[in-house]
């Protein structure tokens, strides 16, 4: 099975709690217990979410200190932005062509209708 980092990132981001954790980490690195505070969630539950985020490359956890600070890793999010941007360009162009084709096809139909 080929690895697909972007699909792992998207599936990690699909969960609102994980997005909230990222939004908190965007303000600066913090500990797991501090992260758990606003969520009304047990530490193991938060740790589970952090593992998913870490596997998706969205956060990193420090090894240097006992409290293993969590911080956001911007690179994975940049990958998301880049794909969204490229996919938009692809579709904008494609849908422009569809629009042109629909106009062309309908004007031909109209002309044909008049001739009858």
């Amino acid at each position: 099975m080929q690895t697909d980092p972007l699909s792992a990132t998207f599936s990690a981001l699909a969960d609102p709690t994980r997005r909230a954790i990222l939004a908190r980490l965007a303000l600066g690195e913090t500990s797991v217990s501090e992260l758990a505070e606003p969520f009304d969630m047990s530490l193991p539950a938060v740790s589970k979410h952090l593992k998913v985020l870490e596997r998706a490359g969205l956060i990193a956890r420090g090894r240097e200190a006992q409290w293993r600070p969590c911080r956001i890793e911007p690179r994975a999010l940049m990958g998301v932005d880049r794909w969204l941007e490229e996919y938009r360009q692809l579709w904008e162009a494609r849908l422009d062509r569809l629009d042109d084709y629909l106009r062309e096809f309908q004007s031909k139909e109209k002309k044909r209708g008049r001739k009858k």
Partner: protein
Amino acid sequence: MVGKNDVPEFVIEREFSAPRELVWKCWTDAKRLARWWVPGQFSWGGATLDLRVGGMFHYCMRWPDGRDMWGKFVYHEIVAPERLVFVSSSSDKDGGITRAPWFADWPLEVLNTLVLHDAGAKTKMRLSAHPINANDAELKRFVMAQPGMSQGFGGVFKQLDQLLVDG
């Protein structure tokens, strides 16, 4: 930045001056897809289209120098003329999934949902999409929820049972 309420998803919306049935045909008929699907630098290298759940649209794009590139959709949900859910990917000429050449982290497979609405004589279109991994629980749940697909698997198992009995 990622906000709590932003579900990360690609969304594009358009309005076409055409009736919904015609827009639907443009999406589901290979002859019409040939007219708009591939970018201008390519020519159309032919396609097969099997519009049913589990069926495939498999198309070929030809570079000016004659090299061929393939892509495909696999249909997951079809509600004419309003809703089409499909997984798109780059492919080889036999329909096997390949890595897209655009850039290294381009997703292997993307789950796309197309919705068409009437807006007077016009048609509103909304396409949403996100990368998906075929191993994802999400996709499995989705596929298994389709009556056609579970029957399909059931059929396979029935055949297998028969083979085992015959064997």
